[in-house]
């Protein structure tokens, strides 16, 4: 299903516009795809250019300008639920493309035909018209039709149906830190805010703390001595850390703990 714009004023929906053309214009004059008959709106106020599943909003040098989510803008890459404001009118952009299709189809690498032209596509004409594809479609290969908004032809080969899986959420990590207990840096605290935190110096003695969906792990990377956790030397496998574990690396002790 194509993305769409929903025109409203003062909370009352006026009309829905599917984005089913490469370029749709918004303005006061009757020839626009989305006509807003109001003197605050320029004759040709803005355009929405759609390339496959992505849409871009462009101000056509309008007198009163436009805003997206409250920020005035000239050009904007539209994201689902963006709110475009033109004078008193609001246009909501909805594009739930991904959630309606199996992500498996989406992740599949596909080949765009024809082979690329050297020049990058222009905004007004996103993709060159397609010359006859050298390979003909047949029974065994399914050519995924691009949404009607695009002039590009996408060729892909069928995959066996795969269970739809929700897009991964940014995992909610429980905050954690290590505090140095001994040595010149004793008392220093290091928040584990990255997916991978290095302890030690590459080339000499290194262990890394990795943040994974199921917790924090320490892994020995290189160096003469294996790090100790609660007095026991690590092997070559990642070791999951528990609250208040004491790590010892190159003679320095530090404590791992969860925050909050």
């Amino acid at each position, binding site marked *: 299903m194509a993305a769409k714009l929903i025109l409203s004023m003062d909370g009352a929906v006026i009309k829905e516009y599917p984005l089913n053309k490469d370029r749709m214009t918004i303005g006061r004059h009757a020839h626009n795809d989305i006509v807003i008959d109001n003197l605050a709106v320029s004759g040709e106020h803005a355009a929405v250019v759609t390339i496959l599943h*992505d849409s*871009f909003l462009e101000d056509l040098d309008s007198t009163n300008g436009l805003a997206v989510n409250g920020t005035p803008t000239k050009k904007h890459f539209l994201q689902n639920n963006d709110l475009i404001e033109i004078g008193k009118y609001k246009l909501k952009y909805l594009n739930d493309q991904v959630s309606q299709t199996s992500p498996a189809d989406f992740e*599949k*690498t596909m080949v765009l035909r024809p082979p*690329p032209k050297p020049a990058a596509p222009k905004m007004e004409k996103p993709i060159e018209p397609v010359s006859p594809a050298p390979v003909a479609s047949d029974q065994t290969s399914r050519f995924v039709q691009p949404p009607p908004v695009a002039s590009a032809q996408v*060729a892909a*080969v069928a995959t066996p149906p795969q269970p739809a899986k929700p897009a991964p959420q940014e995992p909610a990590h429980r905050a954690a830190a290590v505090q140095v207990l001994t040595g010149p840096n004793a008392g220093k605290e290091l928040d584990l805010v990255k997916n991978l935190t290095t302890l030690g110096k590459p*080339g000499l003695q290194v262990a890394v703390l990795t943040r994974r969906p199921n917790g924090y792990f320490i892994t020995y990377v290189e160096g003469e001595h294996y790090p100790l956790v609660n007095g026991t030397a690590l092997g070559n496998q990642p070791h999951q850390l528990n609250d208040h574990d004491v790590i010892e690396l190159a003679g320095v002790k530090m404590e791992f703990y969860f925050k909050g």
Partner: protein
Amino acid sequence: MKIADALEIFSQTDAGLVRAHNEDSVACEPICGLVVLADGMGGYNAGEVASGIAVSVVATEIKHHLQNASPIGRDEATGEELGVSLLRNFIQKANVSIFHASQSQPQYAGMGTTIVSGLFYDNRVAVGHVGDSRMYRLRGEMMEAITRDHSLLQEQIDGGIISAADARFSKNKNLVTRAVGIAAEVEPEVHVHDVMTGDIYLLCSDGLNDMVEDEDIQSVLYAMQGNLPLAAEQLVQMAKDNGGRDNVSVILVKVKGQFAVPRSWREKLFGWLTLRNI
């Protein structure tokens, strides 16, 4: 230093968490400093077939040719350095093989593959690629991609339609504009880069860079440069932790020393004379 001693190479490939098949293929030929990675596409097992053909044609043929020739020699047909022309020619040969197979066997119709390959010789690396499989280089603490995807998204970035920062929100990922085996001809992109001791090169399929931010890839390469098998495992693990929606493959190459091609006294003399004349 001999090329096999100058490089440490490690590869890993994994089907990921969602796909039933692994359509990626990798090959390493340490003896001639060659690494090849391909990400196939096509129904049933056609993707594996395509990437398998590509990797084996490029790896076997180049290895075979380098038994009796030096990569710094000249290709008599084109005047190019042999290392460069071998990469280009055999990617093209792989293209023809895959295209013919797909034309003659209905179950393989429409199959194709991306490819990225590196041939290390004479303190340099020739990099040939088609599609969106990438090569990154870590030098010091700085990591950068040294291939540019042949993809719709990259063309949009180049055309100024979308910023590189916005590109990660695009819903048009995974649309490649060039692939091996989908048409009678293909134009591989080949560039030569200087190599420095300590560099780490990463070849990967989009199953890695679509799932893991460049910043995280950089921290793994930097922190784990002393332990390549662990670095490879960690990269694959991160892609899976983030969803693992595609096959993920990596090849890591660490440059441990110089590997200039030894020149004969005659070449050295000519080189010296040329220098004197300048």
